[in-house]
């Protein structure tokens, strides 16, 4: 797989996670995790299923609240923000769900229009239509405008879901298992799209995955989570050359 990765030179932080912990009942999912997302970088978070990766990014957008610690997004503390402030922050964050989460009762166009109408209220209908056509062309599905989600394949659903996320020009992208359930060819296409989104829209992204090919193709930096804590951090080379048995098992 050959994809171009953007080189990150600046050190401006857009997300700063400080010592967050989260438990569900007796199960401690996140244990005192701290990490930063730099402006313009693709940060891949790797880990086994159930290691708390998805919980971590759901805490970032306020879908879950951490039990302790704080999360700063563009300098604002997500853990203490009210709904109004949170909604303002969410307008700058795109979230690609593992299942795609397309609205079943709406067409592709209506799915894309839904966040546009709420976040970019100043746009006219003509401008909205132009924006929708533009992002659908970017994801290579301009002809799917009037289709229902049930008429789309798994890969197409992921692409439309990505289009719905980028249609509002987010500054941060959070990808939750973007290649899960897809065949290798479609997975590669999605990885290329993630890099394309980073280049075209200048986004900073967190990519949650356990797909090593996707991780290597998209990462500027990687973090491995194990048992709710950061296990290893570095670039692709650090992970590929690691002698640690767990990392080696994961990468093989």
């Amino acid at each position, binding site marked *: 797989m050959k994809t171009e990765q953007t080189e990150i030179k600046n050190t401006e932080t857009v997300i700063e996670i400080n010592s967050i912990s989260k438990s569900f009942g007796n199960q401690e999912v996140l244990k005192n995790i701290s990490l930063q997302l730099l402006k313009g970088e693709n940060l891949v978070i790797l880990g086994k299923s159930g290691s708390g990766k998805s919980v971590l990014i759901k805490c970032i957008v306020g879908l879950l609240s951490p039990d302790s610690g704080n999360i700063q997004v563009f300098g604002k503390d997500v853990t203490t923000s009210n709904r109004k402030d949170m909604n303002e922050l969410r*307008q700058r964050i795109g979230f690609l769900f593992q*299942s795609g989460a397309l*609205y079943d009762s709406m067409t592709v166009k209506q799915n894309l229009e839904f966040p546009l109408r709420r976040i970019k209220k100043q746009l006219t209908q003509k401008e909205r239509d132009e924006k929708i056509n533009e992002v659908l062309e970017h994801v290579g599905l301009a002809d799917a405008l009037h289709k229902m989600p049930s008429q789309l394949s798994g890969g197409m659903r992921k692409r439309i879901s990505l289009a719905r996320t980028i249609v509002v020009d987010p500054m941060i992208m959070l990808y939750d298992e973007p290649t899960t359930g897809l065949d290798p060819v479609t997975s590669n296409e999605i990885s290329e799209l993630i890099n394309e989104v980073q280049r075209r829209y200048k986004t900073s992204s967190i990519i949650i995955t356990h797909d090593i090919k996707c991780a290597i193709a998209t990462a500027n930096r990687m973090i491995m989570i194990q048992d709710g804590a950061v296990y290893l951090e570095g670039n692709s080379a650090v992970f590929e050359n690691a002698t640690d048995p767990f990392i080696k098992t994961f990468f093989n």
Partner: protein
Amino acid sequence: MKILDPVIKVTSFASAQSVILSEKTIAKTEEANNFLTDVANVFLFITSIFKETFSRDFEFKEFFRQCFQIGNKTLPLISITGIIMGIVLTIQSRPTLLNFGAVTMLPGMVAVSLIREMGPVITALICAGKIGSGMGAELGSMKVTEQIDAMEVSSTNPMRFLVVTRVLAATLMIPLLVLYADALGILGSWAAINIKGDTSFFLFFSQAFRHVEFMDFIPAFIKSFLFGAVIGLIGCFKGYNAGRGTESVGIAANSAVVLSSLLVIITDMIAVQITDMLVK
């Protein structure tokens, strides 16, 4: 040692029994705890519905879409049920009234029965099955497939967009459906009377409405709003609070129907008692 054997047996039996008893106590306590948590959650759910109903950004478009959906989904079913209610009531009551020589009271009796009780309750029960289960299943599957979370991260309040619009649409539409079912029931009764005799349309209706008073109509109309609110509320609550697996969608739909039907009957009983006290 032989002397101690029975003592050891009794002690171990007693300790095993006490373990079983304490396990049962823990299970019962957990059940009671879950029930109280559910009650508290329903209360919080209703509170946030009230809060969102009076917020500035009411979702009018989605509210009208839901009103149309409820009417569109249930109209054929309510039409058939309404007519059959009128026909059956008439055919069943006619022999008894004939025995008492009061067959002229038949249109009035049918009209009063339909308006006061049969129309609202039967319509509400049908809507509990059709609308309540639909809401439970739709919101449940939206929860399972993360669509509600997607709405939340799109800066949209899912409570306002999904729940408030559905609860208000059910509250408004079910009284209208009740009126429609009452009208068709009375028409059905006229058709049934004409199977065994010949009664003109105007004579039938003047006989029917001579016995219907204002206080027959108003309490029934008010309780129809309550039925609508109960059906919308329970359907949305069960769907919105569905678990994470696909199995929970079925559970949400099923429990929405069962609970809303039960609550319709209980609300009816309370409404009838209150009406009875007030009219006296």
